[in-house]
């Protein structure tokens, strides 16, 4: 197929065939249309058509017929190469006068009734005898006026109306077989009628020179064509299909120059498409102009071939352009190869470059000149139209409409920008500022805002991810630590059970026991701290009574505190204080705080635990005296692994306060730390329980 497409010969053959099939199609369609206009497809036979054809011909050419009559001479080409003759007949059908030639064949005849009085011929009771010119006038007026078929209900014996008989064949039969000799009549002579003749008829004839010659070329054509009327349809269909197939083939083959199947541009494609179109249209126009010339010049038959060639030329021009367009479409260069497109693209480039120049210019420098120009334009306009009030009003109206639209546009853009910025400020993740219809600086601003949002959400995402990863890492590592730690704890314990006299061994084992226990606590705390700080813990809020919690706490820690020589003072309101919190997490906070008290409080001091109502909520405060000076800012105390300086060597992981504050945050409890000299204070503030 590619080989066929690439072959030049195949293309030429296809073009020739296409031309032929187009001609055939045109001919066939014209023939069908023509035949149909004569009713060939509605079952009319040739005889009927013949009759009708003649009638029409004659009716259409009545003026020419009458012109013939007026001169009483024969003229060729009265529509269908026929002659007009007339005869005057008396009552007994005797020919009185006429110019019918013997060697002519009568195609059609018509009888007119005239009256003959006193040897003169009168028409319709007029007193002036008829001349041949008079007959002409009569026939003409009767045709133009009453019509050929007059009303038969009003017969006028002296001047009967003109009767026209359309059935030419019948009249022909009614004619005497041969009428000879016929006196010739001179033009505009008075017709003389024999004495005593009352009525005479005038018979008009349309004759042709001999029988073998046809009345009209059309009829001849029709008779030739009629038997082929169905074949003609078939031919039209076949030529149409063929033309379409060939056209499709040519379009497909356009641009293929060899068997490789590649589409290549030829020299034709170097010409801009629209230029080529112009050339082709010029060619087509020339062809049609030639055809027009030919037809107006009346060289009908001789020029048919020339016409065909002209049409073919036009078709070839069209085909050339279409094939070239097909190649360009295949290559995707159609638009680019248009001269108009190139010019437009060039203009657009420069316009864009102009805007590009404006890009760096500050907003004020850009807009102030614009406003100045507007002002100037307004001034000039006002000066020029100030004397025409209506015009002035109109100009102002237009001006304000344009200005108003511009302002509205700016306001709408600003609204969008502001909404977007607000949403971004509120931390919404999926803000989208619609940049549609935004131009220039406004669009740039919108894009910048979107970049800010993207940067923000990326940063937040990364932060979340790293937090989660860290929690996972800590959890996994502590799980891994736990297994060897189990062995250590167990074997240290086994060591401790071994009987030994060596005091030092006992001491060392004790250290091992203490430190392994601390390590154990540290790993547990580490997991919890990382989970609490990243909020990776389930929280189930419940309504609970802080007074009860304080009692429970006092019960748990009272004795331990006493052991450390610390006195616990609990104060709380008489009525119950309800808050919303996760009981286990809240307990963990109190647990950690009291453990800290146990570890770091100065022995022999008092520890205060106060519950007070605060607003609608409640406040729980811990106060104790630190054994070591607190040379540290309270905020730092809640950071992980931070402890009072000298507390480093003592037990504890340093995570207690960090865990407590993270857990407080999770539950929405405000935890505040305060250091006042050696007084260490923690206040937990709860919102009111609904």
């Amino acid at each position, binding site marked *: 197929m590619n080989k066929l497409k690439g072959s030049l010969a195949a293309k030429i053959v296809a073009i020739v065939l296409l031309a032929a099939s187009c001609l055939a199609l045109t001919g066939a369609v014209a023939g069908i249309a023509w035949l149909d206009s004569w009713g060939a497809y509605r079952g009319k036979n040739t005889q009927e058509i013949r009759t009708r054809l003649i009638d029409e011909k004659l009716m259409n050419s009545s003026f020419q017929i009458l012109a013939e009559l007026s001169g009483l001479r024969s003229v060729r080409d009265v529509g269908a190469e026929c002659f007009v003759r007339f005869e005057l007949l008396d009552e007994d059908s005797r020919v009185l006068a006429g110019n019918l030639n013997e060697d002519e064949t009568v195609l059609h005849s018509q009888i007119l009734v005239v009256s003959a009085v006193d040897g003169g011929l009168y028409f319709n009771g007029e007193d002036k005898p008829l001349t041949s010119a008079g007959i002409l006038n009569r026939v003409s007026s009767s045709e133009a006026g009453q019509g050929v078929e007059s009303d038969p209900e009003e017969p006028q014996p002296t001047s009967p109306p003109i009767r026209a008989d359309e059935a030419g064949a019948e009249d022909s039969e009614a004619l005497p077989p041969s009428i000879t000799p016929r006196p010739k009549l001179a033009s505009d002579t008075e017709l003389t009628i024999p004495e005593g003749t009352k009525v005479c008829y005038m018979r008009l004839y349309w004759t042709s020179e001999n029988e073998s010659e046809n009345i009209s070329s059309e009829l001849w054509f029709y008779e030739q064509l009629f038997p082929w009327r169905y074949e003609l349809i078939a031919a039209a269909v076949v030529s149409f299909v063929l033309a379409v197939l060939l056209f499709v083939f040519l379009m497909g083959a356009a641009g293929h120059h060899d068997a490789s199947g590649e589409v290549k541009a030829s020299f034709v494609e170097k010409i801009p498409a629209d230029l080529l179109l112009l050339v082709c249209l010029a060619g087509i126009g020339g062809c049609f102009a030639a055809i027009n010339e030919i037809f107006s010049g009346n060289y009908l038959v001789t020029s048919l071939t020339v016409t065909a060639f002209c049409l073919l030329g036009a078709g070839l021009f069209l085909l050339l352009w279409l094939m070239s367009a097909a190649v360009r479409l295949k290559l995707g260069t159609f638009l680019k190869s248009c001269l108009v497109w190139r010019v437009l693209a060039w203009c657009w480039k420069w316009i864009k470059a102009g805007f590009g120049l404006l890009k760096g210019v500050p907003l004020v420098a850009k807009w102030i000149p614009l406003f100045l120009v507007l002002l100037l334009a307004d001034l000039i306009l006002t000066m020029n139209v100030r004397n025409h009030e209506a015009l002035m009003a109109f100009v102002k109206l237009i001006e304000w409409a344009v200005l108003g639209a511009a302002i509205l546009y700016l306001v709408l853009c600003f609204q969008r920008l502001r909404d977007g910025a607000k949403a971004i400020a509120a931390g919404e993740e999926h803000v989208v500022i619609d940049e549609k219809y935004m131009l220039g600086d406004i669009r740039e601003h919108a894009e910048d805002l979107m970049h800010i949002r993207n940067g923000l959400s990326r940063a937040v995402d990364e932060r979340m991810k790293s937090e989660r990863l860290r929690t996972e890492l800590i959890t996994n590592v502590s799980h*891994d630590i*736990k*297994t060897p730690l189990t062995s250590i704890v167990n074997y240290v314990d086994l060591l401790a059970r071994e009987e030994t006299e060596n005091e030092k061994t006992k001491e060392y084992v004790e250290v091992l026991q203490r430190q392994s226990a601390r390590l*154990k606590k540290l790993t547990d705390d580490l997991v919890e701290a990382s989970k609490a700080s990243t909020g990776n813990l389930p929280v189930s809020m419940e309504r609970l009574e802080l007074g*009860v919690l304080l009692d429970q706490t006092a019960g748990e820690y009272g004795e331990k505190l006493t052991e450390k020589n610390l006195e616990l003072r609990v104060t709380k309101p008489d009525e119950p204080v309800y808050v919303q919190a996760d*009981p286990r997490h*809240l307990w963990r906070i109190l647990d950690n705080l009291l453990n800290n008290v146990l570890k770091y409080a100065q022995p022999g001091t008092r520890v205060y635990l106060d519950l007070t109502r605060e607003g609608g909520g409640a406040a729980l405060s811990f106060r104790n005296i630190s054994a070591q000076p607190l040379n540290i800012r309270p905020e730092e105390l809640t950071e992980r692994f931070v402890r009072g300086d000298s507390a480093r060597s003592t037990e504890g992981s340093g995570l207690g306060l960090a865990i407590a504050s993270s857990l407080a945050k999770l539950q929405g409890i405000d935890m505040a730390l305060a250091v006042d000299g050696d007084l260490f204070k923690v206040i937990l503030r709860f919102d009111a329980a609904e």
Partner: protein
Amino acid sequence: MQNILICDDEKDIVSALTIYLQAEGYGTVPAYNGREALQLLREREIHLVLLDVMMPEMDGIAALARIRQESNVPVILLTAKSEDTDKVLGLNIGADDYVTKPFNPVELIARVRSQLRRYLQLGGGAAQESTMKLGAIELDDKRKIVTRDGEPVSLTPREYDILKFLLQHPGEVFSPGELYRRVWGEEPFGAESTVAVHIRHLREKLEITPAQPRYIKAVWGQGYKLEN
């Protein structure tokens, strides 16, 4: 002699546990993964299984599921995971108890003893009318004796009263004030924290690990309840 199957991929832990359990007079059978444990469980007479959760080849949870298809031998899970969901999963699949690593040997032995006693004495002593029972805890009101896993526990009269009251209302939460009113029969007038102290003492006597009580639970901010 009661045989205990110790299954952990960490050989040091297995041998440490072997030393502890043999010192208590139990026979031990070591296994180093779930598959081996299942095999040994079929071949030998085993009274209790200590099963590590994280092991190669077949992990503890899978092994436990297989064990439960064949036998109802007590299983104590040893786990480094201390998350609640893991514990719940283990208990749901059929573990009788769990110990989180790093565990205290004394605690572990106490749990082993508790499980063994229950397993071997199952249905032994029919509960009398005057005895109240919850899990391993039994209170004989006639003889005024409280036992945990059959071992007598000595309680003060007040502790005994509190335990008895809670045993009569298992699962119910009582605030310290309410408990005081019901047990002492007086208005507390600020003596609520005494209740908390008594409860803590009770826990220390009845629970294997008082810090993670199985029976006497604190509902923080609301009160206490006795629950299995």
